[in-house]
Structures are given as C-alpha cells and as structure tokens.
C-alpha cells in the first residue's frame, strides 16, 4: 500500500509531463497544418528542451531569479499530485478543490518572483498583465467551482469524479458551467486571444524576457505541466475523469484539440478587454448556472 503510493507519487509527475509534452508536440504539427505548412519534426519540443538545458552558459540576475523556475516546477509537480486521474488519487484526500485552487498558485508565484528579479520592465509588465488576467478569469472560475461543489455536496475532487462515474458527467448535468469552465481553462493556458502576457512583439515574451538556457528549459517543462493541470482539472470536473489512463488521455486530447482550433483563429485581446470579457459573458453564464444549482 505504501509502496504503491510512493510508486505512483513518482510516476504521476512523469506521466503528467509526458502528456503535456505530447500535447505540445501535436500542437506544433496541427497548427502547422492549419497554416498550410509542413511543420517541424514531431519531437521538436524534446530537442528544444534538451538544447536549452545543455546550453554551455547560463546567466542569473540573483538567487530568486534562478529559484523562480525551480519554484514554478515544484509548484506544478505538487499540483499534479493533488489531481486524481484514471482512478489514482494520491494527495486528493489531504487537500480539497479549494486547497487545490491555491496550490495551483504556488508555481505562478515563484515564476512571478523570478521574473521580477530580472529587473526588466518587460518582465514586470508581463507579470502585471498575468496577474490582472488571473483576476479576470478567477471570477467565473470560482463561480463554476462553487456550482459544481454545491451540485455534488463535496469539495473532494475524487468524490466528484466518483459521483460522475455513477451518474451523468457534469457536462450533461451542468452544461452552462462546463462551457464557462472550458473558456476559463482556455484563458488560464494563455493561448490566443489571451496571450498578451507573453506577447513577443509588445513585451518581448513578457516574464521570460531575461530567461535563457536551463532556466528557460525549466519554464518550457513547466508549461507542459501547466497544460496537463488545466486540462486534467477540466476533465475531472466536467468529463467524469476516467477509469484508465488511455481513456483519460483521450478525453484530455479531445479538450486540447478543440482548444488548439480556437488558438489558431483568434487575434489578441488587450488586457483590460480580456478582463472585461471574462467579467461579462462567462460570469453571467456561470451565475445563471449557479442559480440553477441553488434553485434545484
């Protein structure tokens, strides 16, 4: 039992990374095909990460600058352990959905601190935008979390998954929440049209402006985790989790594939427009869904 737990604790972050990385690979290829290009080789992200890690020289602006990517990665690894997948629930009993919401922040905080120490205004602007956008999508996010929690009368993510296994997926019972959840997860991933944070032409890749070499490599790894976290949470909350790894992967891939299509067609929101957007339609729809849950 204990051996099991230790084994899965080690294997889960690796699994999460592999899933996130595979999505990154597929995304490069799919977006290339949509743009009528051939696209890079499918394992290009692996080359990129390894090249970055193997750079002969790295620069650092200080201790926190170096620790930033490390804390970001540590936060992501921790978060992954709290998300149940394919019937495996490791730490889910030690922190419920509300705790998870705040555990997810640890990584971003580390990232923000590291970027802040680079003493570059582009990084600061990027962080300012990232936090503003976070406040933007947080409002609809908490509303849908509350509606799901009140619908199932528990904040334990594993119980929510189990309840869906016996009944309907939340997608069918709370369709409005699911739609908003998709928009929020999409916004949290920072894809078009919400990619003003890292906009290369305006703020020179935002928070990452001074990061290069192994630091940047860690951030790319962290991005793979980030993709996994957002989508796995969506699958657990709305698509009923899964009983085996393959089915879980398929569900995640379906969600990610739709996201990729959105990513390709949209231009960029200005940051205040993005916040206004999140505080308007997603919030209204989420509130309607919440009221339906309350009245029921």
């Amino acid at each position, binding site marked *: 039992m204990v051996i099991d737990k230790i084994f899965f604790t080690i294997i889960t972050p690796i699994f999460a990374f592999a899933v996130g990385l595979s999505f990154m690979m597929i995304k490069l290829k799919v977006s290339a095909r949509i*743009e009528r290009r*051939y696209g890079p*080789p499918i394992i290009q992200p692996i*080359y990129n990460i390894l090249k970055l890690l193997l*750079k002969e*020289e790295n620069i650092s602006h200080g201790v926190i600058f170096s620790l930033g990517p490390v804390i970001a990665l540590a936060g992501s690894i921790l978060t992954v352990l709290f998300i149940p997948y394919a019937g495996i629930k490791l730490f889910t009993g030690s922190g419920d959905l509300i705790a998870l919401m705040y555990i997810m922040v640890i990584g971003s905080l580390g990232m923000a601190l590291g970027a802040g120490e680079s003493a570059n205004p582009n990084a600061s602007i990027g962080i300012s935008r990232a936090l503003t956008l976070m406040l933007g999508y947080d409002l609809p996010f908490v509303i849908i979390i509350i509606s799901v929690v009140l619908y199932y009368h528990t904040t334990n993510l594993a119980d929510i998954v189990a309840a869906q296994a016996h009944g309907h997926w939340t997608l069918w019972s709370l369709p409005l929440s699911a739609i908003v959840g998709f928009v929020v997860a999409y916004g949290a991933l920072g894809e078009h049209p919400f990619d003003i944070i890292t906009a290369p032409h305006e703020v020179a890749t935002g928070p990452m402006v001074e990061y290069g070499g192994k630091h*940047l490599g860690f951030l790319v790894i962290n991005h793979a985790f980030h993709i996994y976290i957002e989508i796995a949470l969506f699958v657990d909350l709305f698509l009923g989790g899964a009983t085996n790894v393959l089915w879980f992967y398929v569900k995640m891939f379906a969600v990610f594939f739709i996201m990729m299509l959105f990513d390709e067609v949209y231009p960029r929101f200005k940051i205040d427009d993005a916040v206004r957007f999140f505080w308007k339609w997603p919030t209204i729809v989420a509130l309607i869904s919440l009221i339906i849950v309350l009245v029921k």
Partner: protein
Amino acid sequence: MDRLTEEQAKTIANMLRKRSLWMIHYCTGCGAIELPPTMTSRYDMSRFGLAPFVTPRQSDILLVTGYVNIKTLRRIITVYEQMLDPKYVIGFGSCPINGGVYWDSYSVIKRLDRYIPVDLYIAGCMPRPEAVITAFRTLMDMIDQGKADGYKRYKRNLAYYKENQRKVLG
C-alpha cells in the same frame, strides 16, 4: 552502461543543438524583407527546427540582415554579448561582407567579422529564401562537425575584437 566520455557528450549536445536553432534577427537593412517568406508557409523554415525569437537570452543565432552602421554596431555587440554560449552569427547579404552598396560610406562598417566573429555569410543582394535555408543547413552541418566555433574565437581573441570595436566606436 558506461559513462559517456566528454567527446561523446559534446557530439550528442551538438546533434541536439543543430536540430533546434532559435534566431534573433537584427534587421538593420532591407534584408529583413526576405525573412517573412522564409518563415511562413511557402518555405517554412520551422521544418528544420528553426524559429524566430525575441530576446538575445533565448536565441542561438544572431542574424544580421543588411548594412551595419556605427550606431547599430554598438547594439549588435550588446546583443551578441548578451546571448548565451553556444551562439552563432550569420551575416546576411553583401553589406556585412564588404559594405555592399555602402562600401564608401563614412558611417557604415565594411566587414562585420572584424568586430564580432561571423560563422557564416550569405552572399547576394538580396539572397533568396532558398539561399537562406541553404545557409542554415550549412550552419547545422558546421555545428554537427564542431566547426561553428565563433563564440570560442571571440573569447580567445577578445583583445583583437575589442581593439577593432574601440577604433570605430571610440
């Protein structure tokens, strides 16, 4: 499993490096106009793992597209020194080679490799995207064979480069 020797490790690292080259294009002159077709669907340089990037910290290749005058030289040197090893420089078009049409201008640098080490030149005014891609492929081969060692030369002959830079920049 035996421990990798340093030589083998370097070979593997070079193999990886040549497959993922990120470039920062310093668009000083008209040469930049040839890059969009190279990047986009028609020629699609991402096939070779090449991608345009923004800041010198993230990039491996410095692409100097066009003439370099004294004012921009200072920026180019800053950008070059901010890049992380290993880093490569490509001179694009005839201007960085010998000044091109600006060969007798008072304010334009004639030979870029007197100031920073250039690994590769692409001749032509302008070089077509095919030529650009050929250049990148050549650079990849050079990296694979360990010949693209401009950054090492820069460190070795720092006094020489600094002297030349000082002469122009003052």
